[in-house]
């Protein structure tokens, strides 16, 4: 019997209303018991000293791109999950835009098998909404559900047809699947490469108006009302889309949303100098939208933090700005940015941080026995030092790609140990 005991730590579990000193006993990959700090524990248990640290239910990234199968030059499930555990994530949910697209059970099973082979983070695939994400015929959601998907999405190629989206929501409900939407009306974004506003005009780059996101978000909220489906707005980035979610929540609809660390940290001014590592979709928005995001993180309108980790090879990113692909990596910087930009400046406290990284993602995607450390649940644990100073060097990333806008940034607050299913998979050296 393999036992582990984490002693001296400050245990935060929002679901159990726990926020204080507790030792944690782990047995055979599950949480066995919470112990008072002076309570005895089995002598044969391996001891992890977490004095001065935060012990939290494992962080879950609801939105990553692992690129396997098909684009292994950018990332593999092994390198992606290595970056995940180094960033404190015990589980990642990967988007279906691989090659081939994850629109059937065989691909879903392949992804899960590859993640088991890697043995690092848990991988929960997200299946396509429509076949080949073409927006016309529904994909086999039921079969993919049986194979292990936790949600459906046509991320990056959002379903343009409201009628199809309605059917998708109605059908996904039968399998208790959340529909995740990357909100973008492509007739409005129309070849744009950055946020439309003063900076896009100054740089002579084609703009993507905030409305491209907002129009789709409003549509999705209304469809959620019509169908009663669970709808999750991915990487929310505009004031108007946030307002749509706020209204949905006030009506009691099952609408949730996530934000990325880059959207709560940077504005479109980061594009100055034509830095292709500041090119992502949705684009970095203006200060006005950033302020709306911070307000919505504070008031709870935004449920979760997700990275939208999107690896691209340097040869693809080192192109003309308008030809370079959208996306940045983010698994290893999410925790640092959250400490720096949200926690230490008083926008949220540590309990809310854990809620946004673990409790809420598990609830939204229905991951049972995760997102909490109540006895009996899976021993997925993230241990943080809220004050440790460190500098992110993209040259040392575990990801196969290096497309981060945060190279050289310093943070207070770091991941120290990551435990997945009772096994230590990352320890900060």
């Amino acid at each position, binding site marked *: 019997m393999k036992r582990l005991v984490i002693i001296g730590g400050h245990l935060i579990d929002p679901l159990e209303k726990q926020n204080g000193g507790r030792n944690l006993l782990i047995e055979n990959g599950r949480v066995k018991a919470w112990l008072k700090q002076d309570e005895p524990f089995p002598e044969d248990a391996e001891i992890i000293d977490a004095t001065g640290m935060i012990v939290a239910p494992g962080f879950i990234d609801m939105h990553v791109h692992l690129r396997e199968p098909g684009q292994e030059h950018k990332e593999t499930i092994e390198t992606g999950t290595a970056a995940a555990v180094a960033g404190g994530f015990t589980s990642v949910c990967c988007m279906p835009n691989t090659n081939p697209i994850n629109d059937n059970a065989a691909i879903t099973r392949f992804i899960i098998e590859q993640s088991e082979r890697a043995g690092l983070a848990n991988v929960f695939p997200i299946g396509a909404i429509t076949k080949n994400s073409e927006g016309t015929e529904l994909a086999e959601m039921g079969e993919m559900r049986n194979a292990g998907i936790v949600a459906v999405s046509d991320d990056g190629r959002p379903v343009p047809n409201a009628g199809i989206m309605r059917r998708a929501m109605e059908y996904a409900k039968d399998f208790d699947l959340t529909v995740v939407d990357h909100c973008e009306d492509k007739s409005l974004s129309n070849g744009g490469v950055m946020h439309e506003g*003063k900076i896009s*005009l100054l740089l*002579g*780059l084609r703009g993507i108006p905030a409305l491209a996101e907002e129009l789709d978000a409003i549509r999705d909220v209304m469809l959620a009302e019509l169908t009663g489906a669970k709808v999750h707005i991915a990487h929310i980035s505009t004031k108007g889309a946030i307002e749509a979610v706020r209204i949905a929540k006030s009506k009691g609809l099952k609408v949730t949303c996530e934000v990325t660390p880059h959207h709560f940290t940077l504005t479109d001014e980061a594009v100055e*100098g034509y830095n292709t590592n500041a090119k992502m979709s949705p684009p970095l928005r203006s200060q006005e939208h950033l302020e709306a995001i911070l307000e919505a993180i504070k008031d709870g309108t935004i449920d979760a933090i997700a990275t939208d980790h999107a690896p691209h090879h340097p040869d693809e990113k080192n192109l*003309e700005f*308008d*030809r370079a692909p959208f996306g940045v990596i983010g698994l290893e910087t999410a925790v640092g940015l959250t400490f720096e930009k949200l926690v230490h400046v008083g926008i949220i406290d540590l309990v809310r941080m854990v809620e946004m990284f673990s409790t809420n993602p598990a609830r939204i995607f229905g991951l049972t026995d995760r997102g909490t450390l109540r006895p009996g649940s899976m021993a997925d644990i993230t241990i943080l030092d809220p004050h440790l100073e460190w500098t992110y060097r993209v040259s040392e990333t575990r990801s196969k790609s290096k497309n981060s806008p945060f190279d050289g940034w310093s943070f207070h607050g770091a991941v120290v140990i990551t435990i997945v299913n009772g096994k230590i998979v990352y320890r900060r050296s």
Partner: protein
Amino acid sequence: MNKPFKRKDLLGIRDLSAEEINTILHTAEAFREVSRRDVKKVPTLRGKTVINLFFEPSTRTRTSFELAAKRLSADAVNISTSTSSLAKGETILDMAKNLDAMAPHVIVVRHSSAGVPHQLAKASRASIVNAGDGSNEHPTQALLDAMTIREHKGKIEGLKVAILGDILHSRVARSNVHLLTKLGARVCIAGPGTLVPKDFAKLVDDNLEICQNIESAIEDSDVVMVLRIQKERMNQAFFPTMREYSIHYGLTKERLKLAKKDAIVLHPGPMNRGVEIASDVADGSSSLILNQVEYGLAVRMAVLYLLTGGEE
């Protein structure tokens, strides 16, 4: 007074101070004289290499840069290609490193993507001159426009300049807005609503105004600058037909009467006669379109000279 120009590159007007702009313009005036000599050549840049790297078709600008280099006795190499680096499987970085290996002093670059000169400048030891990048900037065009205006109006400060047409996609408009407002002119822009973004007025702090219609932009102006309409824009539903454009937004003799009596007309070329500008205006006495070409050569000589270490 000898004022060295301290920059490695000329990427746009946006980053330049009024003083730097004046340095280039003064230097250009001196070089204008060279082109009027019988022997149009000075040994100033002997032994220096200038590469003209044009990813977009261009006759006027490329020839102008080539002649500018040659009249300064530099060795000029022209590379014209319509394919992007991507199409050849090469990154911007590869391209910069390869050219750098040949140790040119100046690389003049035109590209359909905004920011390519900036990306090259970061990766290359050579001085980069932006000869037009996508919809971003075309600094030597704005400099030659300023030189034309100054030669004919004696000053720039206090003038009203109307810029008409496709503002959204125009690098000429952006460079001119920056330059003219830095030197104290009042700029009024106008064109179809689809091609004049409302946020454009925020581009600079002062002296820039978006007019309701082209008539009010032209009214009482000292300079009327007409932008080229690109035919492919029509297919993207920015305006219905060329015919409609010429009727509602073209510079006609009638509309020009709204400007000051001694107003001058500029166009960066090549013109679509009968579309954005009527032929009788293009060929009329107010038009300085051919003078612009002459000044362009002087401005480019000045830029090459200053970037390679020359003094005003």
